């Protein structure tokens, strides 16, 4: 079974902090994704990566950046956290043309 592991299940940070959300997959998948989930809005794509050091903006990239130095790890970075970034963050990985596999999510609160 594919395993996608997100480093934290719950996280509380303060406004202005730099925040790192980590995601690791164990199946050598090419593609990795970061989504944000908000009530009534479903999941929205922040960034995705289709190879090491390669990234592409999703639908809501503002205020976020990403890093993929190794194939198995995809990090989401909040450069200067703001309260409107309080949300559930979901990471997913995918082998080309196959369905995406998701992690358990990180519920992030920015105070």
């Amino acid at each position, binding site marked *: 079974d594919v395993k996608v592991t997100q480093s934290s299940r719950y996280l509380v940070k303060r406004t202005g902090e730099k925040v790192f959300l980590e995601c690791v997959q164990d199946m050598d998948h090419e*593609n990795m*994704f970061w*989504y944000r989930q908000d009530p*009534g*809005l*479903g*999941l*929205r*794509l922040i960034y*995705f990566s*289709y190879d090491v050091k390669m990234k*592409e903006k*999703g639908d809501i990239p503002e205020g976020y950046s990403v890093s993929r130095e190794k194939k198995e790890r995809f990090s989401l970075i909040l450069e200067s956290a703001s309260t409107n970034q309080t949300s*559930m963050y*979901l990471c*997913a990985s*995918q082998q*080309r*043309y196959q*369905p*995406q596999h*998701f*992690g*358990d*999510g990180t519920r992030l609160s920015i105070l």
Partner: protein
Amino acid sequence: AQTVTQSQPEMSVQEAETVTLSCTYDTSESDYYLFWYKQPPSRQMILVIRQEAYKQQNATENRFSVNFQKAAKSFSLKISDSQLGDAAMYFCAYRSRSNAGGTSYGKLTFGQGTILTVHP
């Protein structure tokens, strides 16, 4: 850009009965995938069923089946013999099959979600 709409924020069903969740989408493409994902309280998104647009036959996975109406751009999920474990948030999602620029094939567009409650 593609959009996916789930017009039912909440649905409920009695155990052992059948429920249908609705999903419509908008696209100008002719070849694509459609998915239903389940998100239980544990939060992990689980793939329920997948439909390829070029296939006319509706996909079925045990108690889960879809009604795919390509012309109407409709993709509903039917859950038969509902069980308590089916209680979850359900998301409909769209993915292009095209490989424009080599990077677009993986992106999912999700609907807003439907919370399904199952009553014993």
